[in-house]
């Protein structure tokens, strides 16, 4: 077939564009978040003293850091699914997240006596954290990959990694409402490890499912 013939077929298939990637991403993710929240309510649920600690700066920091990570990775992933779109600003924004986390860790190290560093870092709920965050992240990661298939990522593996970062971060924010460990030292260790699992799965899923 000559290329001109193909162009004729493409021209005849010019239908109005459907919803944008961002709209699809938002719709499917809303579903993913709802599923994750239902899973959360059915399994762990918020901690009993939720209302009492909600003003505590350490407790609030858990949500600030996870939601900041979710926001920055969503902004990057929206760029990655558009071929040729510049990503420098979004990568720079994402790089702020570990800096904020490091600031929280330093503040905690200053505030706490040396003897408490290790017990606060190890916490009481580390393994639950390690299992729960990937568990809540899974419906969101699936939703994200489904939505991103509509895009055109020229780097499918990297796009999957950032989608994993996003899903892991949202799941971590949900899990934070249950977790009795509030120290930034705990967050830096266990939340990071748990999100890293989701990131690895996202990277593999991206390579497999986001090619086009």
């Amino acid at each position: 077939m000559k290329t001109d013939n193909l162009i004729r077929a493409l021209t005849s298939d010019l239908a109005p564009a459907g919803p944008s990637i961002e709209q699809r991403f938002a719709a499917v993710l809303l579903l993913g978040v709802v599923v994750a929240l239902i899973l959360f309510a059915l399994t762990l649920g918020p901690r009993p003293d939720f209302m009492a600690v909600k003003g505590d700066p350490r407790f609030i920091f858990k949500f600030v850091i996870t939601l900041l990570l979710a926001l920055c990775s969503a902004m990057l992933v929206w760029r990655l699914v558009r071929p040729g779109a510049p990503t420098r600003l979004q990568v720079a924004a994402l790089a702020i997240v570990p800096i904020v986390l490091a600031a929280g860790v330093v503040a905690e190290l200053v505030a706490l006596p040396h003897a408490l560093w290790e017990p606060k870092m190890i916490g009481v709920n580390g393994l639950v954290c390690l299992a729960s965050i990937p568990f809540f992240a899974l419906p969101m990661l699936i939703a994200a990959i489904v939505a991103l298939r509509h895009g055109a990522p020229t780097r499918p593996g990297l796009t999957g990694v950032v989608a994993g970062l996003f899903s892991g971060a949202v799941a971590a924010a949900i899990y934070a409402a249950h977790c009795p460990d509030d120290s930034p030292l705990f967050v830096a260790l266990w939340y990071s490890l748990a999100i890293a699992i989701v990131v690895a799965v996202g990277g593999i899923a991206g390579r497999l499912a986001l090619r086009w």
Partner: protein
Amino acid sequence: MSEHDIDGLMRAAINGDAAAYNRLLTSLAPAIRALARRGLGVAGLAAEDAEDIVQETLLAIHLKRHTWDPTMPLGPWVRAIARNKLIDAIRRRGYRAYVPIDDVMETLAADAEEPTPLPGRLDAHLQSLPERQQSVVRAISLDGASIRETAARLKMSEGAVRVALHRGLAALSVKFGAKP
């Protein structure tokens, strides 16, 4: 055609202007062909496969046109898609060495004429489509029939023709991406 003009054509196309869309794709094809040839040359592969890459890239441009942000220039978007399809094609041939693709991606301005058609991969892929999609794609592309004429000829509704055409084109794009 300048890079500024192609932005306007794509905007018109997204608003449903088929003539603008046809002009856009027709003017992009030689530029994509030129960079596909150079890319294949750099990788030490035969330039006659360039037309497959042109066709695969045009299909991708069509099926992924919603990923172009109208506030950004179209040129880098087209180049990124063409580059992606070129790298895929080179990888499918088992070529693993580093290819300095950036060297050949500098411009969309260079032109290259379409060669006399050889039976390319598109023809093979077309033959493997379900019968109905195949007849619709053939009628519109090869015979130059309109949607309405195709509907009358194949005794289908116009809506069914549109659906079969779209699904056929999407399936062709997937077949290009599969390993040969």
